[in-house]
């Protein structure tokens, strides 16, 4: 073990900031991260063991206990449930003879829950030893378990057809489908690698920034900060080294557009990073990819290698003296909060993914305390088109506040789930038509994932854009027969509670209290007081440090606002207060332990 750990540490240049990579390798090699490995890492890096352990314990794909030769992570997102996860989960449990969170006695397989893995358009899906298995059925699960018993390699277990496009290439070989349904300026194939780089090296960095500013482009991650301005801040910030980060940690349940870009248009993305590097004066780029997309690693590495060979990356790029830029891929290890830019930087430095206090913003003090730009995958891709066709051209799409196009990840109850590139300014109604969802069959649409808004048919005429319904691109369509409170809102609350980094007491505590109230209402013990409390308590969350904490109450607040009847019909009308306390339930375990029969 000692030698193995030493070798891994050396592989990453004895750099303690590469702790994530070191841990990912150890986890992969052993199926868990043994205590001795933690001791060894702490010793080598002269850190305390708890410093290493806090990183290990933070990410849910790291485990301090064995996870089995085959570690099965079954997605438990809302859409997975809609698409029949319950039966799939039950079949896994029955066939393996274990519950979730357990490993079979012979150590062959472990079964775990995981939040949205970016496959919402092909659920139920699972990750087994970094391979993706989509559209699972009880039958398919039986096949998988049989293969596990036979000790088959996960690559051989993918017996279905490979997915479309690059998914079937030798370096990916995955059953994942792209489901690209509508192509616009970002997704179209009208691009050859190096095109935009050749153009920018003839320009001054300031001119590149000017062009991006002219396009009025705003960040595509959801917050919508103007991209050109961000670059300018970073360019002007003092610092001996600057960094470009691509945020490919799309963890918002229901989003999967970045996965499709990483699969089909990685050259476009990398070119966008080179442009950002040139504009800002950075020499290093890091793509922070969520661990769920680890199956794309070799594919991405190969394309980076091709770019280096063509001198699109490396030193004196395309003959431009002093223009040096290279990109490396940093994988996360399963933490939604790492999609927040400062948490992402912390994570890339090998630490817990806790958002930093801001200011200073990453453009002033980011990675290694140096000025850092963090841009979404889609933003960086759009930049290339702005450079090639001009800011004015880009501005010709969309609305005043929201220029250009937006990639939408659409899933749920519709005929054609998948990725759509639409011009900003679409109404929800237009989208429902486009994806094959009959309006009379749709009860609600979740716009922007759990942190966004749950809207009712009354609002389907609202438009997508920063002026009205801002979104990072996730739309989940909820059919008439779904139970919104128990099926969707409760799942989202569980998600936020699991994913809180625990730093702010507001986010650590209030969502749990709110979930308890919701459960009380679902158990027919709620009163008007509970509804009032939910509204009031939700406001406290605004005191949290990051977007996760601030929006962690939104599933309840938004459904309460737009679907008040769902709550009102479940509360007790004749009571002004009910604590929901049940003495018999509260002594159940204790009575068993003492062998007493309660007598109240």
């Amino acid at each position: 073990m000692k030698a193995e750990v030493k070798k891994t540490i050396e592989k990453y240049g004895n750099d303690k900031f590469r702790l994530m990579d070191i841990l990912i390798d150890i986890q992969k090699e052993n199926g868990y991260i043994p205590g001795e490995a933690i001791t060894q890492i702490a010793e080598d890096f002269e850190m305390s063991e708890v410093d290493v352990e806090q990183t290990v314990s933070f990410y849910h794909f790291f485990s301090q206990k064995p996870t089995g030769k085959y570690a099965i992570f079954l997605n438990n997102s809302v859409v997975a449930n809609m698409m029949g996860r319950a039966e799939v989960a039950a079949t896994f449990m029955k066939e393996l003879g274990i519950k979730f969170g357990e490993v079979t006695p012979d150590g062959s397989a472990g079964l775990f829950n995981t939040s949205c893995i970016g496959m919402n358009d092909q659920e139920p899906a699972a990750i087994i030893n970094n391979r993706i298995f989509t559209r699972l059925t009880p039958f398919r699960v039986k096949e998988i378990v049989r293969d596990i018993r036979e000790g088959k390699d996960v690559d051989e277990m993918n017996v279905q057809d490979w997915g479309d496009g690059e998914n079937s290439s030798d370096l990916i070989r995955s059953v994942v489908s792209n489901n690209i349904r509508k192509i616009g300026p970002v997704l179209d194939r009208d691009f050859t690698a190096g095109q935009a780089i050749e153009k920018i090296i003839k320009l001054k960095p300031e001119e590149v920034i000017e062009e991006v500013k002219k396009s009025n482009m705003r960040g595509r991650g959801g917050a919508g900060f103007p991209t050109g301005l961000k670059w300018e801040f970073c360019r002007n910030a003092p610092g001996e080294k600057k960094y470009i980060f691509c945020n490919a940690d799309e963890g918002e349940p229901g989003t999967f557009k970045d996965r499709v870009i990483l699969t089909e248009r990685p050259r476009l993305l990398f070119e966008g990073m080179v442009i950002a590097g040139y504009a800002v004066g950075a020499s290093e780029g890091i793509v922070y990819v969520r661990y769920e997309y680890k199956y794309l690693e070799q594919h991405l590495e190969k394309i980076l290698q091709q770019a280096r060979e063509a001198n699109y990356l490396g030193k004196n790029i395309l003959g431009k003296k002093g223009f040096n830029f290279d990109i490396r891929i940093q994988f996360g290890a399963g933490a939604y909060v790492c999609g927040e830019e400062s948490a992402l930087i912390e994570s890339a430095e090998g630490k817990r993914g806790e958002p930093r206090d801001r200011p200073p913003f990453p453009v002033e003090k980011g990675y290694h305390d140096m000025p850092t730009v963090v841009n979404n995958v889609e933003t960086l891709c759009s930049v290339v088109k702005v450079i090639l066709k001009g800011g004015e051209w880009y501005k010709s799409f969309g609305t005043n506040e929201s220029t250009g196009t937006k990639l939408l990840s659409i899933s749920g109850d519709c005929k054609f789930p998948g990725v759509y590139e639409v011009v900003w300014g679409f109404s929800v109604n237009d989208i429902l038509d486009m994806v094959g969802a009959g309006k009379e069959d749709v009860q609600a649409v979740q716009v922007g994932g759990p942190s966004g808004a749950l809207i009712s048919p009354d609002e389907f005429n609202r438009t997508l854009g920063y002026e009205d319904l801002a979104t990072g691109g996730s739309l989940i369509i909820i059919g008439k027969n779904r139970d919104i409170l128990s099926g969707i809102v409760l799942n989202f609350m569980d998600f936020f509670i699991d994913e809180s980094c625990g730093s702010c007491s507001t986010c650590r505590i209030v969502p749990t209290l709110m979930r308890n109230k919701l459960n009380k209402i679902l158990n027919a013990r709620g009163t008007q007081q509970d509804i009032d409390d939910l509204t009031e308590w939700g406001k406290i969350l605004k005191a949290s440090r990051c977007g996760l904490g601030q929006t962690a109450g939104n599933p309840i607040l938004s459904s309460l606002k737009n679907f008040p009847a769902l709550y009102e019909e479940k509360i007790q009308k004749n009571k002004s207060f009910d604590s929901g306390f049940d003495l018999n339930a509260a002594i159940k375990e204790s009575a068993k332990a003492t062998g007493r029969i309660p007598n109240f």
Partner: protein
Amino acid sequence: MSKPIIATTSLAGCFGCHMSVLDIDDRILELFELVEFNKSPINDIKKFTKKCDIGLIEGGCCNSENVHVLKDFREHCKILVSVGECAIMGGLPAMRNGIPIRECLEEAYLNGLTVVGNEERIIPNDPELPMLLDRVFPCHEVVKIDYFLPGCPPRADLIWDALVALISGDEMKLPYEVVKFD
């Protein structure tokens, strides 16, 4: 007008909050001028003899008896106040909430290092004993609580000010030091 009637109790607490009540020093004489005490450890009245105006609750609910007492208080008092950390959040006793109750009992009566003599390996089960709850509950999760006085224990002045405000009906002064987050 007759004097307001006060009742107090300590559930799963340490009596520290009651000590803090005594800490109002000589104002205790004034307090006895202002109010009448009913069920309370202060005068050792064990059972309610009449309806009360204010009930002060120290401690959360860790067993069935706490629940019965608390419900009794709710029935007899117009206003109930959770006094101190344990009543409001469960406090120190709630540290067991993360451990299954069976493990707690086994540690205390069977496997703990300080266990001696329990050859028959019995976890106390006499019917006379209150039954432990699976976890410690803050009071407001059992009955409606009207007011909360935070602190461990709440400072004597805070308790005094709150009582005076409740009795006089005047609004209580809440300076920043009293309501700050941590």
